């Protein structure tokens, strides 16, 4: 089986309050087409929220790529892109 896509979600205070709490639900509630293909883990604050150039909370990391202003839809889209062979690696 192909290696799973790694989704890391920031569990810091700011990210959590601004939307990471919803994204975390993917750990137990992944859409059927992505289920089994993604490994979801939490991440202690990356301090990305202190760097304006990186975007705004909440932050996630998908296979090492940092994504700001993350939403459940955006994360799922990015995961699908990678599952279907698209997306970049940083």
């Amino acid at each position: 089986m192909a290696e799973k896509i790694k989704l890391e979600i920031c569990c810091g205070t700011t990210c959590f309050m601004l939307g990471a709490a919803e994204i975390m639900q993917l750990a137990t509630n992944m859409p059927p087409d992505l289920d089994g293909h993604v490994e979801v883990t939490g991440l202690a604050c990356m301090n990305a929220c202190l760097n304006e150039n990186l975007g705004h909370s909440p932050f996630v990391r998908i296979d090492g790529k940092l994504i700001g202003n993350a939403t459940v839809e955006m994360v799922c889209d990015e995961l699908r892109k990678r599952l279907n062979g698209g997306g970049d690696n940083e």
Partner: protein
Amino acid sequence: MNSSPFVEMECCQITKDGQSACGDDFQWERDESENRHIAVLSDGLGSGIKANLLANMTTTMALKFMHSDADILQSAETIMDSLPVCEVRKISYATFTIVDMLAGSGRTRVIEMGNPGYIQLRGTREIPPFSRRTLVSKNWPDREMTVSELQMTLGDRLIFCSDGVTQAGLGQPHCKFGWRREGCMEFARKLIEDTPDISARELSRTIAFNALSINKGRRCVDDTSCAVIYLRNPRKLRVITGPPFHKEDDAKFAAMAADRDYTVIICGGTTSNIIQRELHTRVEIDLAQVKYAGGLPPPGEMAGVGMVTEGILTLTRVAALLESHSLEDAPLAAHKILDRFDESDVIEFIVGTKVNEAHQDPSLPVDLEIRRNIVKKLKDLLINEYRKKVTIQYI
């Protein structure tokens, strides 16, 4: 004797079925300057609010009299004279057990009137008092008091209870005269034999709930209280929260997390990042239990160090739960912190004072509490309502 054993003092109370208030009352006081600990357990006549009132008046007065070193007999007379007379029984009555302990020397005095006799256990061995005398009031000749002088030493336990414990199962074929003091003592001995380090909290709970299980239909037919005092080496917990004010202190700060004398909790993302970096370790956050997270970021584990949680939101919730004395619907991270508080005697907060810029984000939906204020609140609650020894160190 060790110069500073911790005095773990716990009382488990179960209210008689159908009553809204417990007719037993337990109060305690700790005088840090003398390392003196006073505890009073009283069982009020009858049950419900009336009994609660009698018991509460008794514990309140007894605590005050003991603290001011008033004459024992005179104090007891004042208490008995003050209690309202029951309209039904035409008497005023509340039993009591008072324990007055100087933890530094271990010298302890136990004054009892009407309650089942206390039990002192050193390991599983019962230790008799080195002196015991009886006091009888002229005004209340039928209310005998016994005053026992005893020596407590590190590892000793003192168990005292209301008659809800010793009379549990009364009339049942297997214990016609109830569980009695002897049955309770044997049960405690067996528990200590199986778990030599059993905490006062666990022991008091197990005894009280076992008494309940002896009753027919597991009903609580009388208010049931079991208090345990355990002189133990303190179980130490260190809660580290907030980044240090000066970056130069990061290494010293991280070393505090690596101290093996303490169980460690790290509360805060930036805080855990600093410690991860300095100790070359990493945090694992398992999102599989996210359904129990209950509105807080889920807890994680830092390899070789201890539990990691988010900071401000989690500590704020912990303070609210401590205040309400309830674990109902407690989010996982807060629940785990409260469990560790329960299992600790001495709690040390290490508070980094650097302001977290991310918390100033104007788009945050609620105002975040100031870290120092929450920790101060936690300290007050843990000392005043949970009998813990608490310190705060700012860095």
